[in-house]
C-alpha cells in the first residue's frame, strides 16, 4: 500500500520539558518523524513548549510553535494551521495524554483532524487498566490480578504485598510497592492525588519475577515485527528506567523467547495498534514459566530509543511512515539498503544500559529503588561480549574520579 494521499499536512506534538522519566529520546523521535514526513511531501507543523529541543530548530518543520502543551495551546495551533492529521506517538506520554484530551474535548472532531499512529480507542485500551486487562485476556494472556481504586474508602479486601499504580502519570510517579495496610493506604492517597483522573490500580505483586520488554512494530497489513528484546537485570519491582538492561535478551531458551514473541504480537493485535511502534513489558517467573503482561505503550518510548540505538532499526522513522499508510515491506531498511523494514534485527553484539543516579543533588530523597523512576539519565555500552558491554556502560556513567 502506498502512502496516504488524502492527508496533506500533519501536526506533531513534542514531549515538552525534559524531566526525570522522559528526556531527549522523544526529541530524537520527533526529529526523525518530521524528517521522513517532509521527505514524503507532507506539510509539517510541530508544537512543543521546550525551545531547547532540536525539533524546534528552524528548518525541521514547515511551521514551529513554542506553545504550552495543554488543550488550549494546542487547540489554538490546530485551529490556525488546520492540519489534516495529528501524530501523537512521538512525544511520549505527554503528547499521548494531550491527544486524548483534545479528542475528548471535541477539538479534533470540530477541526476535522484525524489522529494517526494511535487512534483514541487504542490509547484508551493501552492506558485504561480495565480495558487493557480485557484486551489481554481476550487473547488468552494474563495481567497481574488487580483492582481499580478511585477512593480511599475502597481498600477493604486488598492484599499486600501489592503495587500501587496511578493512571496516566509519567515514570510511574505517585506509585510504589507497598507492604502492610498502613503503607497501602498512604500510597493510594498519594497516587490518587497524582493521577489526573484520580484513579489508581492496586495489583498483585510480581516483585522478583524476571522483566522483559519487546519492541514491536505493526503495519496496516497486520505484519508484525519484533525489533528487539530487552532483558532487565534488576527484576520486577525496580522501574525499567532504573534497571540495568540488556539487549538482546540472553537467558531465555528459544521456546520461552518465542512464547514472549507470540504474546507480544497477540497483545499488539488485541489492543489494536494498527500502524506504528509499541513497547510491551512482561514479567516472567523463572521457576514456573508463568507470564504476566505488565504494560504496553502504543508509542515511541524510552525503550524504543534504546532499541533503536541497540539494533540500528530506526523505530521512530518507520513508525512515522507506517502512520501515513506505508507497509513494512515497502519501507527500505536503512542498514542494508537492499532489504525492507519487515525483518527482525539479529545482533552479534550485546548492548547494556546502565542508569545514572544523582541522589547527591537530592539530599532528602529516598534512595530505595522501586516502581517510580529515580535515575536522571543513562549510559549505553556496546560490546562483543556481555562483560565488555557491561563495563563500558558502567564506566560511561562518569561517576568515578580520574
Amino acid at each position, binding site marked *: 500500500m502506498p502512502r496516504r494521499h488524502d492527508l496533506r499536512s500533519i501536526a506533531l506534538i513534542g514531549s515538552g520539558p525534559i524531566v526525570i522519566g522522559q528526556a531527549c529520546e522523544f526529541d530524537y523521535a520527533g526529529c526523525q518523524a518530521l524528517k521522513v514526513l517532509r521527505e514524503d511531501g507532507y506539510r509539517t507543523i510541530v508544537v512543543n513548549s521546550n525551545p531547547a529541543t532540536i525539533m524546534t530548530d528552524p528548518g525541521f518543520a514547515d511551521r514551529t510553535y513554542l506553545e504550552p502543551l495543554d488543550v488550549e495551546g494546542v487547540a489554538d495551533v490546530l485551529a490556525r494551521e488546520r492540519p489534516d492529521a495529528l501524530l501523537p506517538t512521538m512525544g511520549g506520554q505527554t503528547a499521548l495524554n494531550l491527544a486524548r484530551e483534545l479528542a475528548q474535548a471535541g477539538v479534533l472532531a470540530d477541526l476535522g483532524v484525524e489522529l494517526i499512529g494511535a487512534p483514541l480507542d487504542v490509547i484508551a485500551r493501552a492506558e485504561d487498566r480495565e480495558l487493557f486487562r480485557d484486551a489481554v485476556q481476550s487473547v488468552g494472556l494474563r495481567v497481574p490480578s488487580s483492582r481499580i481504586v478511585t477512593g480511599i474508602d475502597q481498600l477493604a479486601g486488598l492484599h499486600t504485598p501489592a503495587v500501587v499504580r496511578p493512571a496516566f502519570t509519567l515514570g510511574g510517579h505517585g506509585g510504589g510497592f507497598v507492604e502492610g495496610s498502613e503503607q497501602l493506604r498512604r500510597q493510594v492517597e498519594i497516587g490518587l492525588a497524582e493521577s489526573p483522573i484520580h484513579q489508581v490500580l492496586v495489583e498483585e505483586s510480581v516483585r522478583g519475577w524476571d522483566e522483559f520488554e519487546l519492541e514491536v512494530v505493526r503495519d496496516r497489513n497486520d505484519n508484525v515485527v519484533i525489533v528487539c528484546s530487552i532483558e532487565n537485570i534488576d527484576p520486577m519491582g525496580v522501574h525499567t528506567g532504573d534497571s540495568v538492561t540488556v539487549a538482546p535478551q540472553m537467558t531465555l*531458551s528459544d521456546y520461552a523467547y518465542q512464547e514472549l514473541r507470540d504474546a507480544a504480537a497477540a497483545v499488539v493485535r488485541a489492543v489494536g495498534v494498527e500502524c506504528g511502534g509499541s513497547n510491551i513489558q512482561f514479567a516472567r517467573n523463572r521457576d514456573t514459566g508463568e507470564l504476566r503482561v505488565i504494560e504496553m505503550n502504543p508509542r515511541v518510548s524510552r525503550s524504543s530509543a534504546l532499541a533503536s540505538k541497540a539494533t540500528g532499526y530506526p523505530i521512530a522513522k518507520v513508525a512515522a511512515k507506517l502512520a501515513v499508510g506505508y507497509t513494512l515491506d515497502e519501507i527500505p531498511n536503512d542498514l542494508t539498503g537492499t532489504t525492507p523494514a519487515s525483518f527482525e534485527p539479529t545482533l*552479534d553484539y550485546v548492548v547494556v544500559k546502565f542508569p545514572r543516579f544523582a541522589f547527591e543533588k537530592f539530599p532528602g530523597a529516598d534512595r530505595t529503588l522501586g516502581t517510580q523512576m529515580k535515575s536522571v539519565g543513562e549510559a549505553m555500552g556496546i560490546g562483543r561480549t556481555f562483560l565488555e558491554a557491561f563495563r563500558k556502560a558502567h564506566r560511561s556513567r562518569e561517576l568515578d574520579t580520574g
Partner: protein
Amino acid sequence: MTGFLALEDGTVFRGQSVAAEGFAVGEAVFTTAMTGYQEIVTDPSFSDQLVCFTAPMVGNYGVADGRSESATVHARAVVMREARGPAWTDWLHERGIVALTGVDTRSLVLKLRDAGAMRAVAVTGSSSADQAVTVARAQAPMAGRPLATTVSTPVPYIYSDVGRARIAVVDYGCKRSILRRLAGAGAAVTVFPHDVASDELLRYDGVLLSNGPGDPEPLVDAIAVVRELLGRVPILGICLGHQLLGLAAGHATYKLPFGHRGANHPVVDRATSRVLVTAQNHGFAVAPSEAREATHVSLYDGTVEGLAFPSERAHSVQFHPEAGPGPHDAWPLIDRWVEGVAYAEAA
C-alpha cells in the same frame, strides 16, 4: 587448549577449544539465530557442516532433553564468539563435538558472506595450519552431495498412531519439531526412510517431504518418487522437501552463496502480501521464478520460498513452519494442511 578454524582459501581463525579434542571436517556456514543453539546443532540439516553462531553468547540457558531436534548432534563443529558453560560445553564434549570459543566470528561471517560458504576444518591443539587447509581442500564440495541418504531413518516407524488424518513422513533428515507439530495438529504420523517406494506412501492420506541436508539434485530416486506421488496424494514439502517437489515439477535448484540460516528471514506470501518472519536453514534453493505456483518469495534475495500446485494438491515451503528454533508465525501452515487432508478424507 587452543584451536583454530582453517578455511579452504587459507584463512585461519584462532580460538580456544571448549569441548572434544580432535578435528572436524565440513562446510563452514553461519546462522544468525540468537536462540536455540541446542536445536540447531541437533538439526540433521546441519550434517557435515561447521556451524558458526553470530550470536554473541551461546550456552547461557544450558541444555534440556526435550530441545534436541534429533537423537544426535549433526553439526561437525561449533564456532562461537563466547561459549558459556559448563552445561552446554560439557554436553558438546560428551558427544565428541569440536567446539571453539573466542573466535572472531564477525570477521569469519563477513568472509563467508563475501566469498560464500567454504570447505573448512576445525582443529584443536597445535596442528599445522597448512596441513589443515590441505585437508579442507581435499573434501568434496557440498554441491553434488546426497547427504539426506546418510541421516534418514533405516526403517519405518510409527511416531503417533491415532489421529484424524494418516500422514506419511519421508525422512530425509526430519526434525522432531515437524513430527511434533503434525501430531499436535491431530495427525497419525508414520515415518519412512528416504528410499521408500511410492506405492507404500500412496496408502496414506497425505505425504510430508521432510527437511534434510545436502544437495537435492543428486537425489534422483527421491525426485522420481515425488513425481509418481504428484496428483495422487496430498503433498507438503518442507525445506529439502520443497526443493524435491520443485525439481519434480520442473523447477531448477542451485546452491546459494552462503545460504539462509537464521530465525529472522522475511518471506512474503504473494497472495496476501503478508510478511512472515521465518526460521530458515538451507544452502540450496529453488531458482527465482515468476510462475504463478511460486507462492512465497524471500524478501532478501527473491528465491522461491513456497510452491503450490493446487490441482495436484501439492505445496511446499522452503522455510521451517515448525520453527524449532525460530518464530511461530508459520505454525498454522502445518495445522491447516493436516486439517485440509483430514477434511478431504472425510468428504
